[in-house]
């Protein structure tokens, strides 16, 4: 497996790709924060936020619909908000009877439900754009510059570095299991659920030991190469004037979104 098999980065030449990763991280978090601050039902402000998002999409040269296509990852969770529709606070809109129960959607409930959906949908798209235009190692350095404790960012960097190695290990284990689970026509392969769970448990234990022992070897190899406790980078990450300008523009557009949302 390739080392960057898990990266969602899309190599391109664009103003957004060339921005300092710090700017992109700050703007993404500010965008999500701004969505969380908007009051329920401020549709005009959600529209402005969406325009900001579309502009960022366009500037990234990945296509206007790029993040839209990938924006449905959080959709299954919308189920959790469905019950908000039936909030007893608002004016009842309809009343259905179903198996002896009355189901009453209210106007307040609907407003709340769609506001939650809008916030979530907008926020997840900006996060998608962030990882599509920033390489993961750069992202980690950005967090380091933003004063996230260095040992934590380095742990995440290691996770990313060894993820594909251990995924290969998982595939080897899965292949071995498959090779040993022959099935005769008309008969199910493998034993009962408990038996299958036991096989999986042993695989998890096996994977744990292989990882644990591997981390020992990695540590020794790193020590012998002069490891002192943190990773270094050759990428300087200096904020240029263009970066400051982009940061200012993005933050003021979010301020505008807030104004639109709160002034009626």
């Amino acid at each position, binding site marked *: 497996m390739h080392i960057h098999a898990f990266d969602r980065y899309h190599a391109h030449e664009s103003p957004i790709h060339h921005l300092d990763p710090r700017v992109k991280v700050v703007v993404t978090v500010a965008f999500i924060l701004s969505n969380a601050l908007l009051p329920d039902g401020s549709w005009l402000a959600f529209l402005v936020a969406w325009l900001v998002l579309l502009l960022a999409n366009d500037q990234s040269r990945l296509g206007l619909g790029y993040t839209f296509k990938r924006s449905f990852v959080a959709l299954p969770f919308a189920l959790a908000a469905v019950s908000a529709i039936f909030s007893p606070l608002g004016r009842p809109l309809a009343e259905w009877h179903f198996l002896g129960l009355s189901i009453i959607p209210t106007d307040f409930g609907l407003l709340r439900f769609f506001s939650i959906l809008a916030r979530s949908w907008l926020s997840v798209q900006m996060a998608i754009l962030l990882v599509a235009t920033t390489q993961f190692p750069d992202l980690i350095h950005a967090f380091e510059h933003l004063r996230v404790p260095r040992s934590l960012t*380095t742990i995440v960097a290691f996770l990313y570095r060894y993820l594909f190695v251990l995924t290969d290990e998982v595939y080897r284990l899965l292949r071995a299991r498959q090779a040993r689970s022959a099935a005769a026509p008309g008969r199910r392969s493998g034993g009962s*659920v408990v038996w299958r769970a036991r096989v999986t448990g042993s695989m998890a234990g096996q994977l744990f030991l292989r990882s644990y022992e591997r981390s020992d070897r990695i540590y020794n190899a790193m020590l012998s190469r002069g490891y002192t406790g943190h990773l270094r980078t050759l990428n300087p990450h200096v904020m240029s004037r263009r970066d400051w300008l982009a940061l200012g523009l993005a933050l003021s557009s979010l301020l505008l979104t807030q104004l639109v949302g709160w002034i009626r």
Partner: protein
Amino acid sequence: MVYAPAPLHIPDGFLNLVIALIFWGLAASMIAAALSKTNKSLGEKQVPLMGVMAAFIFAAQMLNFPVAGGTSGHFLGGALAAIVLGPWAGILVMTAVIAVQGLLFQDGGLLVMGANIFNMGILTAVIGFGLYRTVSGRGKATRLAVAGFAAWLSTVASALLASLQLWLSGTSRLEIVVPAMLGVHLLIGAGEAIVTVLALAFIEQTRPDLLNAEKTASSGGRGWIYTGIAVSLLAVFLSPLASASPDGLERVAGDMGFLHLGQSAPYKILPDYTIPILGGTALSTIIAGAVGALVVLGLVVLVGRSLRKTR
């Protein structure tokens, strides 16, 4: 790539800002404590060990086993990590896993990541390690049974806390979200328990040195036992209460001022109509209650026996 988003990762937009920030604060302080503790015990070895173990949890979540009808059980790993590596290390490992899931795969939001870390990394470590630590010097069967139970309970408690957060944020109705989330996670937790127990059994067979009593005792003090038991009891008593009589919990939260804190739209005391979409409400309540009673009994017996021994 086999990658199934777990239903416990809350995306951005579903939690109220106040709730999200409170849990970020709680998670951040625990992470800071965990960083200094593991740094003291492991030194510069901390980073490679934690990093590779985090990659292990991530990769192990791809191991799935077919259950029935196209569904498959898979593994979250919080309790296992805390039991084998110690609670502080477990917290760091799960933090890294949740951070990468949220950042790279958008499985869980950024602003609500604190809540996700607290639910799936810290709560699982407290319950998983806390309960396991009570029996660390005992026979293999007892330890594995307690580890399995701790893994199950930690999954259920995470689901409970996540539904309480959703309710306090005004996203879900309490009487719907708690039975629904608990119902699903009673099953997911069973899979988690089986895999955790069998993985531990395997590790015990090949590397017993990783699980011996001194190592467990040195990785977390007695405080973990008390916290673990307290949190477990809270979860066991709160689950049936929250699913059986949401009115009671809602009133308590209202009296204590929680509702005004968290919710932009406080729900008044519930009217009579509800929509029990899930038929499993009563069943899950009964099971949780029965298990709770058993746990209390078991803990009383264990605590009594260990007290007798030390005397």
